[in-house]
């Protein structure tokens, strides 16, 4: 439980951090909340030669609504989402998820950006951000670029971040009126990684028809899954039982979970359908103004 030796840097600005990344390349790892990186280092599954600790960089810990987006800075902790009025009022899906990530101590330290940047399909924010159609700002030596989060996850523990880039901001479009979302996580005990989880976001018109739908699947494949077939199917439909059933089936068809110590693949797959239905129902209730 003792990491290998490493060099430690604590840059004072993003530019300085990127300069360090440029110097050390893939030898280096960014340390923010550390709740994914440090366990790997303690077990010596990861032995980065250089640690670049960005916790001292000022001005990166914001959660704010600006220009039609919820903007989450690189150092915003999970706990700051829990206490954010914008999140509570306009993002029930995020409000749901943040309560089921690890425990309060972890949430005081772990960052939302780190939860995405680790590229772990078992983390909860990737599916949520996929459902919400978020985008990420990646900053490197040549400046910043913006990617839809659906293009961010490349493979297991692999993202579109190059070794010289830092994930500097997450931007989540503020949903229009008549929107709601919900997250349902099956876990072995509180604070565990998901056995399987689904996050759904819907916008309904005044007649109760779906005008937009987003569905993200946690731990359902080697990358976080955006259940696009189900999303497309739902647009223009009312959420009756048959529609929900078919949406669940379509989401399930896009999942490819593996058996592990949490559960066999067959269970996880079946639960993708079940949880898609349940979260869509709850999302729709919330879209209609219910608090269920």
């Amino acid at each position, binding site marked *: 439980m003792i990491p*290998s030796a490493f060099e430690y840097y604590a840059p004072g600005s993003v530019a300085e951090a990127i300069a360090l990344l440029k110097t050390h390349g893939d030898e280096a790892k960014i340390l923010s909340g550390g709740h994914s990186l440090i*366990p790997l280092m303690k077990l010596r599954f990861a032995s980065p030669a250089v640690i670049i600790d960005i916790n001292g960089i000022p001005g990166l810990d914001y959660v704010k609504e600006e220009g039609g987006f919820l903007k989450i800075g690189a150092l915003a902790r999970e706990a700051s989402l829990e206490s954010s009025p914008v999140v509570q009022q306009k993002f029930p899906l995020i409000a749901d998820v943040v309560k089921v990530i690890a425990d309060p101590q972890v949430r005081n330290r772990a960052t939302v950006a780190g939860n995405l940047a680790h590229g772990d399909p078992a983390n909860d924010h990737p599916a949520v951000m996929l459902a919400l159609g978020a985008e990420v700002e990646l900053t490197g030596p040549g400046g910043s670029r913006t990617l839809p989060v659906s293009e961010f996850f490349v493979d297991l523990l692999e993202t579109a971040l190059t070794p010289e880039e830092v994930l500097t901001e997450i931007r989540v479009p503020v949903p229009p009126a008549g929107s709601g979302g919900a997250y349902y996580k099956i876990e*072995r005990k*509180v*604070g565990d990684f998901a056995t399987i989880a689904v996050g759904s976001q819907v916008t309904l018109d005044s007649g109760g028809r779906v005008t937009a739908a987003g569905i993200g699947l946690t731990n359902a494949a080697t990358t976080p899954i955006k259940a696009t077939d189900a999303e497309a199917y739902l647009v223009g439909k009312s959420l009756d039982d048959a529609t929900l059933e078919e949406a669940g089936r379509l989401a399930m068809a896009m999942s490819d979970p593996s058996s592990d110590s949490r*559960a066999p693949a*067959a*269970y996880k797959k079946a639960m993708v359908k079940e949880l898609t239905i349940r979260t869509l129902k709850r999302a729709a209730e919330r879209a209609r103004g219910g608090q269920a």
Partner: protein
Amino acid sequence: MATQTSQSLGGLGQSVKRKEDVRFIQGKGNYIEDIYLPGMIYGAFVRSPFAHALIKGIDSSAALEVEGVLAVVTAKELAEHNLAWMPTFAGDTQAVLAGDRVLFQGQEVAFVVATSQYTAADGVERVEVDYEELAPVVDPHKSLEMPVIRTDKEDQKDNLIFKWDAGDREATDRIFNEAEVVVSQHTEYQRVHPAPLETCGCVANHDPVTGHTVIYMTSQAPHAHRTVFALVAGHVGLEEHKTRVVAPDIGGGFGNKVPIYPGYVLATVASVLIGKPVKWIETRTENLQSTGFARDYHTTTELAASKDGRIRAMRVRTLADHGAFNAQANPSKWPAGLYSICTGSYDMEAAHVEVNAVYTNKAPGGVAYRCSFRVTEAAYVIERAVDLLARELDMDPVELRRKNFIPKEKFPYRSPTGWVYDSGDYHAAMDKALKIAGYDELRKEQAEKRARGELMGIGISSFTEIAGAGPRKQFDILGLSMNDGAEIRVHPTGTVTARLGVKSQGQGHETTFAQIIAEELGIPSEKIIVEEGDTDTAPYGLGTYGSRSTPVAGGATVLAARRIREKARRIAAHLLEVSVEDVEWKDYQFQVKGVPDKAKTMAEVAFAAYTNVPDGEEMGLETTFYYDPPNFTFPFGTYICVVDIDPGTGEFKIRRFIAVDDAGTIINPMVAEGQVHGGLAEGLAIATMQEIRFDEQGNLLNSSFADYLLPTAVETPDWELGKTVTPSPHHPIGAKGIGESANVGSPQAIVNAVVDALSHLGVTHIDMPITPWKIWQVIQEKGV
């Protein structure tokens, strides 16, 4: 002076706040990791990545080049001192370090000694071991067909460790042959791990000048451990009079800190060789992968009964997986521990139980995880089988239990496997539990829910526990009688120091043993200090496990106190200027019979014991008593679990859990309830979360708390406790031992509840740990 009462003294039956908590809640406990000695160095293990392999060579040169690495010890060096192997408590031998082969993943291969924990870890990474992999034996059911694992043992021709049986085979078979009803169920009581929050560790400090060695270690049995050290390593200087084992505060044991582990031996060897204090502390992974696991009992249980629900006989066939070395901690003459208590709370004509234990390429163990030597496994099989029989007979499980309980007038009761239960009133505990639960209403609710397609279950467990090993005629560990000592010193100013051979790991001994003495001597418990864990000061004893502290050391404490009271009475008579016969112990003081205002307190007598001793009397007021319990004590109880299941996901919630315990006289109700709460949480964990799992190559699949789960306040329901009091007739204060009842009694209540919720679908059993996916799978299979 106002009359003393039990309450004013903090005596028996009082919920005195725990003395030890003053330091614990301030973070001021003193655990092994808190011990720092000048010049201390550190040891860490190189462990096998393979479950079964030959060791072709070990190259330590790169490790020795790491700055700060002082030595790399291998089996070769140990063999030079005849220390490569050590005895286990079960009478087997265990490699201290692997020599020519490794027998389980995580086995200790080399010990790196360095100036810091960091350099030790770097050194471990650089030791190169050349392995040649062998096919591992992972499945205990196939072990007997596989090549011999223990090639080090000359007369070992297969992988059988022992074959043991109890009860009357013929009588049992005869009843089964003629029985009207027979039920049978195979159950796998999975391998679990006690996982105490503090892992194992030690600081060994050998003084090369005096030849004395002090070993601070996580030991539930400091004296027994020192004796074993002396027997094994006396020839290299660890003679008993020069060796001091100190167990400081211990962060939970649950049986895990009963065995002797290679780490204790290597740290001591390293300290002797290098002449400096050596600290060794396990990581969580090391604790889970190499130290004493529990259970791993695979059993077919059968009950024979009459059509009207009278249980007649029980037949139990168990395959026990002991891992690569038989390192289980059981009384030596009892290879399957007290497993033959498996007839439980029921009066039947005959029983026969057979256990075959096998070697596999897994970590050694078989310790009691908050369990008195396999009674947990025993309670599980009988309580599951009784539920199965109820189902078969279409009887309410409560009714079937009531019908077969040993009636209270039959105590002391001789069980078909030979135990003599001291006392019990099973109907009373059952009635109380049913009343708290509102059982009839719950059944009504269940029927209504079932009609609506909702899943709700009620599970019962009416267990009998066996605690207090043990009477020395039959119970020893490596020949050491399982008796325990208590020393009491009453100081001149009327305060007390008491020392015991047992060792608290969180049980609250500093509080409860002081209460026993307060009650016996009339000295307030706050004036009494209880010390344990230092072999230089404590009287001999076999330690704390198997709920034996109160039944055994508690008996020693009471009788030591009464011996002091006898002498004190003589001194009191001298002070009161009457004859001894005219002095009585009343209201916690010595009174002249019939003259209550002519009295002396124990404090006054204590002062006289050092200042005004009558002629012919020795000075002082102290004694030591070793207690040989005449029998075990048999705590019992009824637990009721109510569970709701989500049919769509298989998720379940334990809505209510009622635990009515009877452990005889209760010393401190608050501490007893705390013990029950802890045991229930562990039982819940075993029933729903915990399993030490291996893949086909023998790789451990859950080597951290990310995958080996401990329950939190979120998973644990609001326990509803109740008690009945049926004192033990043979224990000096009628106490029975409450530490482990809840772990013994609870897992099957939960399993029974889940199975009950699904019984109308034809479900008869689900193996632990019961998880949402298992429930979902069963629901799918039944086509609902």
